[in-house]
């Protein structure tokens, strides 16, 4: 069983690497470097204005550490067929799951350290913690995380003490109490309490091997974990194993009335229906449009609104690109007597419509917010036009040709 986990982990990591390479492409890394640099600069400036004794500082610290404790889930790497094939090995499954537990613990602890490093200057500045106290805080958070994972582990067994797997208790109640003890009482007392909770959980782990496994929760939990990972990757590339839910959306049917039923419009028909009804796609589009518009409402300045509109239009267009291949696995499009010449033209038309709509919304928003600065208004309109043209007619064909080659 130990070897099985090793094998699964190997395959899992290769898969992750494959996607991570696509996520951290050159553009994204560049954007990330700028973003981290900018945020770091902002953070260090903000710190200078802070003093000790602010009433909200401990609350903020507890809040951030709570978020930190929630990150990093129990990665069991269980697959649906396991409940048939591993049926006779159920008693030995604990060895497998324990490996998974420790692997998840290491990963999650690293995340805690990252959060802690980022938060450290703020803690030092606002509550004047000593080095020893800071390390006690780190230990507390890691102990809490292990207890969190242990509860997630317990959940996967049919235990008579069901509260051991209570997510609410170990994810929220216990961490809030112990973190409050740290910041309002004594750091070392908090760390001690967290250690007791963690050790208590670990001590009962071995008694679970006599219990039966709750396969339904085990499989559902892992599927939901993998789904969120794939969803993240899907922001950057096409993930084949992610099949989004489909909604009818009858109220949007008027959008399709303009499509003439001609062979040349085959792909237009498919793309239009697909993007509107595919939850992943339409959700992404709606979310980014709303966030972008809201940002533009609050942001003022000569050039910042222009940059933001361009960035969001680019982001939206970029997410749509993988949809080009959405129907490639469908036998119908290969059987239809249509040439693929129209595919790119149809796709560009859909993109133009969708990105154009966003561009108009953004332009109107920017105009209303910045009525007094004509430079911004003219700049937004011109830059958006150039971007739409460049993105849809220059970049997309090139990019798709490249992806086609990889596929």
């Amino acid at each position, binding site marked *: 069983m130990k070897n*099985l986990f090793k094998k699964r982990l190997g*395959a899992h990591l290769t898969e992750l690497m494959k996607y991570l390479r696509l996520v951290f492409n050159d553009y994204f890394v560049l954007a990330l470097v700028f973003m981290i640099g900018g945020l770091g600069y902002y953070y260090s400036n903000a710190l200078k204005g802070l003093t000790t004794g602010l009433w909200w500082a401990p609350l903020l610290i507890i809040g951030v550490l709570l978020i930190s404790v929630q990150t990093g889930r129990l990665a069991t790497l269980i*697959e*649906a*067929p396991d*409940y*048939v*094939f*591993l*049926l*006779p*090995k*159920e*008693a*030995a499954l604990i060895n497998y799951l324990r490996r998974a537990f420790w692997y998840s613990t290491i990963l999650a602890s690293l995340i805690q350290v990252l959060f802690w490093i980022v938060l450290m200057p703020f803690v030092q500045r606002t509550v004047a913690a000593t080095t020893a106290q800071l390390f006690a805080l780190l230990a507390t958070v890691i102990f809490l995380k292990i207890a969190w994972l242990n509860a997630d582990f317990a959940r996967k067994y*049919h235990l008579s003490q069901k509260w051991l797997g209570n997510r609410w208790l170990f994810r929220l109640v216990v961490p809030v109490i112990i973190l409050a003890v740290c910041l309002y009482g004594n750091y070392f007392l908090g760390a001690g309490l967290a250690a007791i909770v963690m050790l208590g959980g670990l001590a009962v782990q071995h008694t679970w*091997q*006599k*219990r*039966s*496994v*709750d*396969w*339904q929760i085990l499989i559902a939990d892992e599927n939901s974990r993998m789904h969120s990972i794939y969803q993240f990757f899907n922001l950057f590339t096409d993930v084949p194993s992610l099949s989004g839910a489909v909604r009818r959306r009858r109220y949007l049917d008027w959008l399709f009335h303009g499509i003439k039923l001609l062979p040349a419009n085959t792909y237009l028909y498919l793309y239009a229906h697909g993007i509107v009804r595919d939850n992943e796609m339409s959700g992404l589009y709606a979310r980014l449009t709303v966030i972008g518009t809201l940002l533009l409402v609050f942001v003022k300045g000569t050039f910042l609104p222009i940059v933001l509109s361009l960035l969001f239009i680019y982001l939206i267009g970029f997410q749509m690109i993988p949809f080009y291949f959405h129907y490639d696995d469908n036998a119908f499009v290969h059987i239809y007597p249509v040439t693929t010449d129209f595919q790119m033209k149809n796709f560009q038309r859909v993109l133009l419509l969708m990105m154009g709509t966003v561009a108009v919304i953004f332009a109107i928003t920017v105009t209303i917010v910045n009525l007094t600065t004509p430079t911004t208004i003219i700049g937004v309109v011109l830059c958006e036009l150039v971007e739409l043209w460049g993105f849809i007619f220059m970049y997309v064909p090139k990019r798709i040709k490249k992806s086609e080659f990889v596929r």
Partner: protein
Amino acid sequence: MTLQVSNLVGGYSQVPVLKDVTFDVKDGELVGLIGLNGAGKSTTINHIIGLLTPFKGNVKINGVAINDDVKKYKEQIAYIPEQPIVYKELTLKEHLEMTMLAYNLDQQAAWKRADKLLKIFRLDNKLNWFPDNFSKGMRQKVMIVCAFLTNAKLFIIDEPFLGLDPLAVNDLLNLISERKKQGASILMSTHVLDTAQRYCDRFVLLHDGKVRTEGTLAQLQALFPEAGESLNDIYLTLAREGDAS
């Protein structure tokens, strides 16, 4: 007495699907679990393989309940699900290896048996293929080969005939008879009543989460003389009666 289901109350959420189900499968016996869609056949099976926990009552295999000793309980079962379920990233050969590993089978003996089974189901030239890409019938055959590779004492087979070609159905029935002779017990749920009539030793008729009746064909005929000769007739009469009441 291999399988003993006693006063089982259970289901998926708090609402019980099964209401006080009791039946057994003896050594060397093939019992057919018969019922309409939604009668509780798969729920019963999910309780036996330990996917669900009973609200009340218990399931024992050779006297062992799942909470007494998970290992001992589960090692005795081989299960063929209604929907074949295979690993996307494993080849047929690796599926067989997985089964050998899980049931702790002796490699050499197991491969000997595997070769025989693969030949019977005409999968012997597909060892390096991915079952995920097979047709439903072929995937079903993979599940059958994996299950009959084991030395399980209890075989749980959920609706095995749909999607199988007639030759494979026949071969599966032969395999079942062979295992029966060796003393294994088999619980099989099915809608294919004329096949069930010919091969099963006994029948458990589920209706609306309860055991409507059980027994051999002769016993059922004696119990419901006006219902007709075949299992099909008896079952249809009972199902209509059950709905009317």
